[in-house]
């Protein structure tokens, strides 16, 4: 191929508090995924890699989901430290979206009480497994309220066409300039 001279970029996709719909949409890239695999090495991804630990020297990281618990936060900080371009991938990453609807209950304790005590069928008890189940944060937050973000890719989920519109410039080492209803509309 024409870009044999340029080294393949290192691409990661990350799944925090989201429904995985953005990743499903990523898979909707279909045959373009083959082209993507030629131009970038997928070094970490819930749908395209078995690696369990976030690697170093990642060029582009697509991060789906809001930040809802301590595991999300730890992973996000790792991603930020080890990646050059962090892409907030989809509405949950950008706005907290559906996971963020729990924020209206104003805190972690009211959320746990509502879910595990008030709405329980008969075995009401709060989950308690320190070290096993990550603690909820007080609020689900969008990525950029916690770490710097380079590229914003809205949509619930962003369509495959929209994802490609963001990835193609990134693969050329440029920043995507997304605009218009096809590229930046929420929802």
């Amino acid at each position, binding site marked *: 191929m024409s870009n044999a001279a340029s080294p393949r970029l290192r691409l990661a996709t990350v799944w925090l508090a989201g429904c995985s719909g953005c990743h499903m949409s990523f898979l909707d890239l279909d045959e373009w995924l083959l082209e993507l695999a030629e131009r970038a090495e997928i070094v970490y991804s819930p749908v395209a890699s078995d690696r369990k630990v976030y690697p170093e020297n990642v060029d582009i990281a697509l991060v789906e989901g809001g930040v809802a618990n301590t595991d999300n936060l730890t992973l996000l900080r790792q991603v930020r430290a080890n990646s050059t371009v962090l892409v907030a991938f989809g509405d949950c990453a*950008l*706005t*907290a979206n559906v996971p*963020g609807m729990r924020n209206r209950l104003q805190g972690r304790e009211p959320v746990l009480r509502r879910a595990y005590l008030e709405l329980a069928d008969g075995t009401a008890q709060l989950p308690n497994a320190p070290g096993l189940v990550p603690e909820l944060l007080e609020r689900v937050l969008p990525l950029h*309220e916690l770490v710097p973000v380079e590229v914003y890719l809205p949509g619930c989920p962003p369509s495959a066409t929209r994802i490609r519109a963001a990835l193609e410039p990134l693969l050329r080492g440029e920043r995507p300039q997304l605009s218009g209803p096809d590229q*930046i509309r929420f*929802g």
Partner: protein
Amino acid sequence: MTPCRLRIDDRELAIATGSTVLQAARQAGIPLPTLCQLDGLSAVGACRLCLVEVEGQGRPQAACVTAVREGMRVHTATPRLQEIRRTLIELLFTEGNHVCAICVANGHCELQDLAVQVGMDHSRLPYRFPQRSVDLSHPQFGLDHNRCILCTRCLRVCDEVEGAHVWDVGWRGEHCRIIAGLDQPWGAVEACTHCGKCVEVCPTGALFHRADSSEEKSCHPERLQALLQTRQRRGQP
């Protein structure tokens, strides 16, 4: 009527004295975003999206409530105005709970469209996630305060066109919200005629038909014009 001459951006225009800057801009085909404004209702300048800069005046003015003056020079798209408009939209998104993906108005929402128009790919302001309620006491319609941007179109259409005056704005500051009757459940307000005009003119998914699920609300605020014109032809108030 005496015409009034003015310049908007680089266009020399003439329009009837007493018109607003917004009407002049629209007549000349100069795009100016609006949200609270709706033809057929009184202008209140609530959303501030139609802000323009008038030479000789330090502060931007809302075009919908600013009358044209002879020799006026108006700018509609300076970088300062574009920055203000984007910030206004970010404020609207962050002060409420707007979850486009699951909203009845997804795909037919004026706020969602304006976000695209001002280039908002994310909010630079923090989300507030306020605690707000939903009123489902009316048999046909619902009011979700999470999605309300306090444009007051519902209040004005109910008062000025339907003549029922069910709606008002209650409380102050961050507690400000639309209230039915004397802050009663909507369904308990006898003045409501169930006409649905408030739902029809609501720019977001705040007022909706209870039967609508996500993406199903598709209203046509501009239809208000047809009603008003028919009334005028028949000589009704």
